[in-house]
């Protein structure tokens, strides 16, 4: 192990002749690109959060001037009071930023880039320059999306799902340029995503270190690999649909216009054919990283490794045949509803397998409650709620009542915030030492975890209840409806909780930036883990390894009998281990 580290050190010194711009701006190093994606996506997470706070102000206190609202122009909030046309831009852009630019980039942009080469023992990605292109097209896409909020008639306003005809016709939506920029941004985003996915797939297939067989890969890498396949196949559908939408907006085509023979439902089919695999793109990497963190925190091998892999594949496969469950009441043939209901209910099975296996991993373990472990347990607890609430929607008759209500809003936030975002908070703390060479504060990480956990549940759990009361989504002022007037105190409570939840994130941001410069220096292997990345110095040097490491076993050999420590690195050769064949070529 120490020889590897020493070798890596020479590699570090050897490669350090790059200019500042090559090293940190237009870098082809997968780790720097991962860190660049991290800064980019955390920025958009903040933007999405600020938009959410404005939504919550309007819902909790409809018609009252928003604190600081006078800073907004007259076309958005005259006198600080949010206008209906600004409100629907808020919900649209909150969804767009959070789904595409925050969660998707955080999981796939950051961790596929950072972890894949480090965890499979490669020097870098298979195509480092394509990787750089992927990052910069994501930046371009993000700039276009941000810019769309500053054009005179405002940002896109047809919901993040952009249903036509509302999104296609400016006479109906009231926005022309904003809507077009949304389409342009999504096309660029599609380019970025396809470039990234290609790279991840190729790297995992070709650049594994000797001995890193498929079933010795960590579950995080399995999940990121399967996610990349989903991304490669699904995102072009969205980009294609966005091109059609842009043609509709700019060139006056009639793909979706029923008056000229188009089909309004065509957009929904295209969008959700992308959109449902997308949902799994947004959760599978989180599940993979949580598996790594739970095995480490429990000091136990992951329970049912093979069934975990097959569950990932099962979710990815079923994810392609469930898109119609977003369209049960859309007016499509009701018989289709029946078949989509069955496939949707079945997807609960691999999800259940995963939850039970995480619990199996913790059973009779020796649990260490470090910040990554806390967040991983939080993920399991919250994802369970999000997964279970999905069953209500899968059952078509029940969906007829709760579709497009706050029940759905609660569900998606339990999966994407309670699920993905807790996993991300854990992953940031877990791999922070390998990124920046310093540890994040454990104490403040715990404070952040508990505050987030409490306020998160206070914010999103009551949404189930107001959804059951029939509260529709995307209503500028719910008190217009008599049957929603009694719900208003609950809306106010949700808003206060949301503000507290947002404020709690300040702890995370301060901890993140403070630790980067002032945190405790990180040792080689602070979590006593088995993964290949922990044999490298912190931060990991450019080029990672001088010679690719040799892998003797899977990544979850914790507390193995006959070993004095409670972990057993993948690279440590025991007398009984055979040298692997050199078939999985190390990338050169």
């Amino acid at each position, binding site marked *: 192990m120490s020889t590897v580290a020493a070798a890596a050190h020479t590699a570090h010194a050897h490669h350090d002749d790059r200019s500042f711009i090559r090293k940190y701006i237009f870098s082809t190093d997968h780790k720097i690109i991962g860190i660049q994606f991290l800064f980019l996506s955390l920025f958009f997470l903040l933007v999405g959060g600020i938009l959410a706070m404005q939504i919550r102000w309007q819902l909790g206190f409809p018609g009252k001037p928003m604190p600081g609202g006078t800073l907004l122009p007259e076309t958005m909030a005259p006198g600080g009071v949010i206008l209906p046309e600004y409100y629907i831009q808020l919900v649209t852009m909150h969804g767009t930023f959070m789904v595409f630019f925050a969660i998707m980039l955080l999981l796939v942009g950051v961790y596929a880039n950072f972890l894949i080469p480090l965890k499979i023992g490669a020097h870098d990605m298979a195509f480092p320059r394509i990787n750089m292109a992927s990052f910069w097209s994501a930046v371009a896409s993000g700039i276009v999306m941000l810019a769309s909020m500053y054009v005179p008639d405002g940002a896109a306003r047809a919901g993040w799902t952009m249903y036509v005809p509302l999104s296609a016709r400016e006479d109906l939506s009231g926005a022309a340029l904003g809507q077009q920029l949304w389409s342009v941004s999504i096309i660029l985003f599609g380019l970025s995503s396809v470039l990234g996915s290609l790279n991840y797939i190729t790297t995992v297939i070709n650049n594994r270190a000797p001995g890193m067989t498929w079933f010795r890969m960590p579950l995080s890498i399995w999940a990121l690999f399967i996610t990349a396949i989903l991304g490669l196949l699904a995102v072009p559908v969205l980009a294609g649909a966005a091109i059609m939408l842009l043609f509709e907006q700019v060139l006056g085509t009639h793909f979706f216009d029923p008056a000229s023979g188009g089909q309004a439902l065509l957009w929904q089919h295209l969008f959700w054919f992308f959109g449902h695999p997308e949902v799994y793109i947004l959760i599978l990497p989180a599940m993979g990283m949580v598996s790594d963190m739970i095995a480490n925190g429990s000091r136990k091998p992951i329970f049912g*490794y093979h069934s975990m892999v097959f569950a990932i594949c099962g979710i990815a496969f079923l994810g392609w045949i469930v898109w119609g469950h977003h369209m049960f009441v859309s*007016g499509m043939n009701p018989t289709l509803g029946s078949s989509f209901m069955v496939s949707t209910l079945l997807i609960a099975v691999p999800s259940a397998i995963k939850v039970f296996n995480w619990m199996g991993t913790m059973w009779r373990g020796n649990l260490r409650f470090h910040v990554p472990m806390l967040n991983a347990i939080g993920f399991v607890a919250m994802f369970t*709620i999000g997964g279970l609430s999905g069953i*209500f929607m899968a059952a078509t008759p029940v969906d*007829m*009542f709760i579709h497009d209500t706050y029940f759905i809003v609660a569900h998606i936030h339990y999966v994407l915030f309670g699920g993905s975002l807790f996993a991300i908070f854990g992953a940031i703390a877990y791999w922070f030492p390998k990124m920046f060479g310093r540890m994040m504060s454990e104490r403040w990480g715990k404070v952040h975890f508990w505050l987030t956990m409490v306020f998160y549940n206070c914010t999103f759990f009551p949404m189930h209840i107001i959804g059951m009361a029939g509260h*529709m989504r995307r209503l500028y002022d719910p008190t*217009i409806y008599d049957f929603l007037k009694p719900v208003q105190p609950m809306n106010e409570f949700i808003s206060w909780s949301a503000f507290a939840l947002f404020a709690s994130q300040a702890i995370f941001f301060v901890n993140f930036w403070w630790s980067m410069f002032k945190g405790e220096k990180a040792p080689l292997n602070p979590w006593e883990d088995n993964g290949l990345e922990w044999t490298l110095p912190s931060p990991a040097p450019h080029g990672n390894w001088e010679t690719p490491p040799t892998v003797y076993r899977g990544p979850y050999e914790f507390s193995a009998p006959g070993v004095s420590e409670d972990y057993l690195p993948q690279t440590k050769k025991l007398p009984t281990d055979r040298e692997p064949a050199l078939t999985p070529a190390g990338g050169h």
Partner: protein
Amino acid sequence: MNWWLPPQASTFAPSIDLGFLVILIITGITFVLVEVGLIVFVIRYRQRPGQKAHYTHGSTPAEVIWTAIPAVTMVILGIVSNGLWVKIKGRNSVPANAYTIGVHAKQFEWWITYPGPDGKLGRTSTSLIQKTTNPTGLDPDDPASKDDIVVRNQLHVPAGRPVVVYLSSEDVIHSFYVPQFRVRQDVVPGLEIKAWFEATVPGQYELGCSMLCGMGHYKMRAQVFVHTQADFDAWVAQRASQAKGEGTS
């Protein structure tokens, strides 16, 4: 406030609520098992000096059990739900004696057409739509359209008789939603979609749009009046004569 589903006011509301309750019980049991399990494990297996984790890679019987139980539960749930789905939304689900009402949605109002004494809705055509004089595009050449009653943002229905609404949209996608009836159906331009329900409890309710349809989405709301059959007939007769009076003057 009400912490449960809204009051039931249609024939299929009780069965949908029962479906909701059954799923709540299934998911509730799973929820308690998982969360209590997590809490117990967190307390019981927390790190202690000298404790070593139990070294195991899993258990095939356990995997089989926790794959099979959810799979069987989900398949049964699917079969049972599908029976109800076909009854409510199936292609031939609309009862033969259903009273026909036309619902025309546009940004941001509901135009409701009643067939009048002849019991038949007149033909409509989008090309005939005039914003003020003919908001639903009723064809004056169709004799069935002569006695049709067109009302803005008011849905009147009789209790105890199935009602089928013919949904059409003039511009964007809207969604027809009456929470107490548990009925929801998107209204899609270019498609004519039928939805039916049978109201049970006379009273006043609200019809809301539940699909983002533009700036005024939040105020796209109509009053729903459920009358007894006698009251409903009286209302139709009164509106019909009123319309006739307007026509001759």
